[in-house]
């Protein structure tokens, strides 16, 4: 058994899907230039003390990586549709190996999103200390764990016809509530609610690039709880998914 070969072809498959590439990677990039390019000289965006190109670089990095993770679900739903998930059931591929391949593919897509947006930000004059870059990327990768599980879970629960709007709408809402589009303020109901969402801490992880400060304990707890709950949900959804679609 050679899981490395299996994973290699899973990655290759994802890289060759051009439509997916455009939507998953091209969209945040296009968005970024559309918003930040005309406003590249705004140095104090919405009185946050942060330049607009920087604010939207981290905001769209959060959104783009989140979409990249959840879009695992779109790929799984398509595989389910053609009966591939059932075909895999009658192979010795373990649940662990299956999840590993899906999660790694999602992380590869997220990694590309991060690199592209960092380059785009740099081209618009964003400069950060190396330590901030490293802390930011590390925290983002951790904050994406719940979304990796969410993607797999949705893929095994929702059919291919409805998963597009579901993941697109869901990601946009989570990004909005997480403060990826504009600052949510520092108090009020929305702010309190947002702090319970993994997307909030994903955006905060991206903001590490601005401050160099990591999460408070609360952030680690929220991410850990969501990662655990959604992984359990993904396992449950995968195991029950043996029927003909």
């Amino acid at each position, binding site marked *: 058994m050679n899981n490395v070969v299996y994973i290699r072809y899973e990655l290759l498959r994802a890289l060759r899907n051009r439509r997916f590439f455009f939507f998953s990677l091209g969209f945040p990039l296009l968005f970024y230039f559309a918003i930040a390019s005309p406003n590249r000289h705004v140095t104090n965006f919405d009185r946050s003390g942060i330049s607009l190109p920087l604010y939207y670089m981290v905001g769209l990095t959060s959104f783009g990586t989140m979409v990249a993770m959840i879009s695992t679900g779109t790929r799984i739903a398509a595989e389910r549709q*053609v009966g591939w998930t059932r075909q895999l059931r*009658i192979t010795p591929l373990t649940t662990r190996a299956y999840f590993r391949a899906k999660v790694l593919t999602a992380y590869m897509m997220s990694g590309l999103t991060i690199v592209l947006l960092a380059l785009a930000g740099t081209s618009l004059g964003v400069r950060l200390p190396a330590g901030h870059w490293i802390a930011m990327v590390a925290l983002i990768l951790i904050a994406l764990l719940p979304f990796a599980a969410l993607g797999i879970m949705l893929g095994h629960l929702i059919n291919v016809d409805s998963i597009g709007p579901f993941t697109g709408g869901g990601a946009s809402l989570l990004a909005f509530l997480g403060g990826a589009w504009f600052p949510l303020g520092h108090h009020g109901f929305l702010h309190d609610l947002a702090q319970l969402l993994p997307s909030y801490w994903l955006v905060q992880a991206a903001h590490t690039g601005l401050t160099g400060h990591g999460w408070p304990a609360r952030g680690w707890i929220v991410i850990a709880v969501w990662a655990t709950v959604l992984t359990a949900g993904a396992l449950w959804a995968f195991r029950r998914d043996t029927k003909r679609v």
Partner: protein
Amino acid sequence: MIAREAVSWLRTAASSGYAGPVASEELSASAGIRLEGLSKSFRSPEGAVLAVRDIDVSIERGETVALLGPNGAGKSTTIDMLLGLLPPDSGGVSLFGRSPRQAVDAGLIGAMLQTGALIQYLSVRELLTMMAAIYPAPLGVDEVLERTGLGAIAARRTQKLSGGETQRVRFALAIVSDPDLLVLDEPTVAMDVESRHEFWNSMRAFAARGKTVVFATHYLEEADQNADRVVLMAHGRIVADGPPTEIKARVGSRTIRATLPEADLGELAGLEGVASADRHGEGVLLVCSDSDQAIRALLERFPTARDIEIAGAGLEDAFLALTADPDADAPDAALAP
């Protein structure tokens, strides 16, 4: 190592919900395929539908067995239970002395399910390489390409294949693990005549290596030409089980209808070329193994026969004739306490 096996066994037993003692008894009992007392019902708006009703099938190593029946006979449900994709309501499955999950994990099973396309963005060769990597002792990818006649299109992307080519790749995926048991659920559905012919040649060549093959079909000819044994299913039950010639004689036939009020059914059934006879009012229905012989014999013996119709009995009709017992749609007696 032992602990890990024990854990994996427990997990299998717990998740399947029916393994347990059956599996361990079977280990010593035999090495073939055993379906014992297998039943499955589905909920539908009209109430519970009994898809498979208490069937027993025993298949020895090296046999090629056709599951023959019309749509809705319970073939696919039986195959899903055999492969462990569907837990039975009652009864058990043992594959070479193991539970379906254990047999699958050991790489002993290759299957082509009824519905299924291929994942995209890989060439035929890449897809086979990817899947071969999952198994403990796969065949070489080149060997599989050659055996399935896919060499010429090995570099083609899966989304560019025709329906027949897709089926051949799915067959290649089913044998790439060099399985002991090959399960094919209506494998020739999307194929033209020539592809079918080539497909069955590949299948027979694979079976000839001492492999066990179970395939489902609703074509009598496929069952007749490619199986050592035919298990005939209708309404979730096994209605006949034997060599193809025997099954063919019972169902593959034409039927003769005639108005013949005075004839004795036993005598009609004894006519040359007649497999069975049935009476409907003044009419009789003869299921024939050879309708040419039968019509000559009928007219010679009963010259008064009139309103004669000879029809090629579709399998559906033949099955109806075979299973036309009055309680066919009533809950199965064996399921009731």
